[in-house]
Each structure stands twice: as C-alpha cells, then as structure tokens.
C-alpha cells in the first residue's frame, strides 16, 4: 500500500494509473491512499472543460496539452464519458483525439466512465485530480460532456471552468436557460470557421452583458458618488467591486489549433484574477466543504444499506409497503431513528 504511494511520488506511471484505478473502484485502502496524497497536492492548476457532445472538447484538450508541453509543463487529463444505464458498460472514446501527444508519457490521459452515478464520479474525479497533482503534473484538465445538470459537480473540481459552445447550438432562448452557461469562467466558441459562429459569439456577449448590467446595478448603489472619472474607470470599479470577472469569449478552430494560444492566455488571466482576489482560496475552501459533505453522504449511505440488510433487506421493506402495512416515509424514519439517537447520545456525552 505505502509502496504504491512511494512509487507514485517517485514518478512511476503505472503506480499513478493503478492509484487512479483504486480511487475509481473505491477499493479498500483507497481512503488511506487519498489521505496520504493530500500532503503532496496544491501545486497544479486545474482546468475544467465541458460542452455538448461533438463540440470539440477532446480536440481542444489535445491542442491545449500540446501547447503546455511546448512550454515545458507536464499535463494530466481526466476525460469522463457516460456509461450505459442498462449494462453499466461504456465506450470511452476521448482518447482518439489525443493525436498531438503521441508517445509522450508526460501527458497522462485517463478515461473514466460515469458508472451510472455522477455523484460517485465527481468524488472519484476530485481524488484522481489529487493523484495527478501529487504525481507532479503542472496542469490538470478535467473534461466531461455537459448539459448543465449534475456534471457541474464534476467541473467544480476545477479552478477555471471552460464551456465550449459550437455554432448552431440553438437560438438566443437557449442562452437564457439556466445551467451550463452560468458556470463558465471562459467561453470558447469552437468551429469558429462555420457559418453562424459570429451570431453565437454575439448571443453570448449579449447574455454576459445582461448579467453584468444586473450586477452593476447593485454595486453602483454601493459606490454611489465615489467615482466621477471616465466611464471605463467606473466600469472597472464596478466589476472589481463585484469581485467580478467577465468571462472572455475565445473563438477557436480546435482541429487546426487556431485560438489555442488565446484560450491559454484567457486561462492564465483567470488564474491571475483568482489569485489576486483571494477567490482561489475561497474556491478551495468551498471544495473541501463539498468533499466533506459528499464523503459523509457516501458513508452514511453505506451505513444505511447495512441497516436495511439487517432488517431483512430492501425487498422485504418494499413488500410491507405494497401490502399496505406502512409507507416509505415511516420506514425511513424507523431505519434512521436508532442511528440518530446513537449519534445524539455520543455528542452529549
């Protein structure tokens, strides 16, 4: 066990791969492993990329990884693909696009399946990021398909979230919808050589404008009369007062590597912004809080499963509901009550 950790820290690729497998499978011993990894983390910059299927995420990741390699940085990539809800199987195809980093072991690319539960995969992702961080990767990219629902938890592992949009993704009402567009720190309009790319950029700009106007209103109240300088200065003050960051919109043609440099610059800008405003620490704190909550949810779920088995299993409980003897709420209360009592007693003593 400690051997695996030592080998990982020593730069053994296979040990890193095996550690991620342990993390993914939640094999016994993975907790100790992840705990031990914590001491060695905190050096990597973590970037999340999400967008609809076929938007060009993997291709962009490939080009960005190449760009970082040219700068002499090492890169880790975790690409998450959906699993079949019926068989649990999955075809993980993101690796196909990693053509620019052939045979370069300093780009560590790992495919992961969502395994039916995004809650589970989000914590596995966070832990796998730690493994890559401890291994010494400078940049870690987390890539996942997104529709603006639970995948958001996955990209939350990242310090900077990129949303990839392609032209023709629908009219401006799509932009009004909640979810995926709200989480972006950087937008990339990929396939910018296609018809309609300008319109997509414009629609994004309008959406961001509306958002800024909203923010502006509340913050000008704050700073009323403070500033009589140029409009730009007011605007700057306004965004700064909001601790604000207006997501830049980068146009790219990932297949040809166009816009990749601008994109990496935008990532660096956002990173600098996070550091300057102290938001990086705030994010880290929020992430730890979320990790603690998720772990507790996972553990209590295991405990409850144990309790259910002790009471004859879920089928028996279901049978008592169908027989009209009780209902799910009553069962939940009765299963939980002794555990809650026990916890309260411990706390008081």
């Amino acid at each position, binding site marked *: 066990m400690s051997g695996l950790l030592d080998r990982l820290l020593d730069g053994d*690729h*296979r040990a890193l*791969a*095996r550690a*991620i*497998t342990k993390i993914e*499978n*939640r*094999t016994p011993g993975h907790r100790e492993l992840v705990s031990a990894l914590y001491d060695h983390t905190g050096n990597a910059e973590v970037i999340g990329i999400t967008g609809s299927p076929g938007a060009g995420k993997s291709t962009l990741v490939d080009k960005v990884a190449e760009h970082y390699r040219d700068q002499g940085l090492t890169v880790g990539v975790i690409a998450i693909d959906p*699993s*079949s809800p019926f*068989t*649990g*199987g*999955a*075809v*993980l*195809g993101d*690796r*196909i*696009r990693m*053509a620019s980093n*052939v*045979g370069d*072991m300093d780009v*560590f*690319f*790992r*495919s992961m*399946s969502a*395994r039916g539960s995004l809650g589970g995969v989000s914590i596995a992702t966070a832990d796998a990021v730690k493994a890559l961080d401890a291994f010494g990767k400078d940049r870690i990219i987390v890539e996942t398909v997104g529709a603006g629902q639970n995948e958001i938890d996955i990209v939350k592992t990242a310090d900077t979230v990129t949303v990839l949009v392609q032209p023709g993704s629908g009219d401006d009402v799509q932009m009004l919808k909640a979810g995926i567009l709200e989480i972006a720190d950087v937008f990339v309009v990929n396939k910018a050589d296609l018809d309609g790319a300008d319109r997509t950029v414009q629609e994004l700009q309008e959406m961001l404008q509306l958002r800024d106007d909203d923010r502006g209103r509340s913050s000008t109240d704050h700073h009323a009369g403070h500033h009589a300088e140029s409009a730009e200065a007011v605007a700057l003050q306004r965004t700064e007062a909001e601790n604000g960051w207006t997501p830049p919109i980068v146009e790219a043609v990932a297949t040809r590597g166009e816009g990749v440099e601008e994109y990496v610059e935008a990532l660096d800008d956002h990173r600098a912004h996070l550091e300057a405003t102290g938001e990086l620490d705030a994010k880290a704190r929020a992430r730890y809080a979320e990790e603690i909550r998720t772990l507790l949810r996972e553990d209590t779920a295991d405990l409850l499963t144990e309790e259910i088995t002790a009471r004859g299993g879920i089928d028996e409980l279901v049978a008592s509901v169908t027989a009209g003897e009780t209902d799910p709420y009553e069962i939940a209360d009765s299963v939980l009550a002794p555990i809650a009592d026990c916890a309260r007693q411990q706390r008081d003593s």
Partner: protein
Amino acid sequence: MSAEQTQRPIRCLVAKVGLDGHDRGAHVIARAFRDAGFEVVYSGLHRSPDEVVQAAVQEDVDVLGISILSGAHNTLVPKILDGLDEYGALDDTLVIVGGIVPDKDEDELRERGVSAIFGPGASMEDTIEFVRENAPERE
C-alpha cells in the same frame, strides 16, 4: 461475482495498430463489450505500438484487445508486448488478438504472451466469455 462486477467493471482497451484502416471489427467488438458491461477505451485508427502501450498503461486496463488485419502482426504485436513488459504491465494484462492471423503464426504469438487469438467466425459470446473468465484478478 455479479456484485463484484457491478462494483468493478472489466476495463478493456480495443486497439488498432499500424497501417490498417479496417475498423468495423473493432467497432463491433467495442460495442459488444460495452453491452456486456465492460468499460471500453477505443484507441482509434493507425496507432503505433508505443501509443498502444501508453494507452494500456495509463488507462490501467485489465484487457488489451489488438485488432489487426494487415498481416503485420508478427512485427507489431511483439513490440506492444515488449512495451508492456517494460512498464511491468505484461503479467497482469490479458492480451488478446482479433483479425486475420495465419495458423502458423499463432503459436509464436501465444508464446510471446498473447492469451487468445480470435479469427474470422469467432463468436462474440465466446470472446466475451473468454474475457470474463480470464480477466486478471486485481485487489
């Protein structure tokens, strides 16, 4: 057994190696493996032996399926096996080959570390069953 399987799906890499553009078979097997509940990483076409090794090591797969119809198996497959060995991954990776391999070449490939060779007419069920039974046990 089944409980363990839901917890830990078998991970496979389906790889196309060398100058061989026939990927229908690889697609069919990738899909069949998926439907069998495996996690399948697909390499894409025209991979070099190094790339296949890199993918197998990084993805930490239990099974490596090499699809090859070009006739270059005697050159390319041993290169992959050597590469795996270099990373200490040969012992606990089940390597299988699918495609066109003449009978006279089979023995040597097996000696080098290929566990099974599935030629034309091999049934999908047999292949899946073979993988289920022979996928290496890991802690």
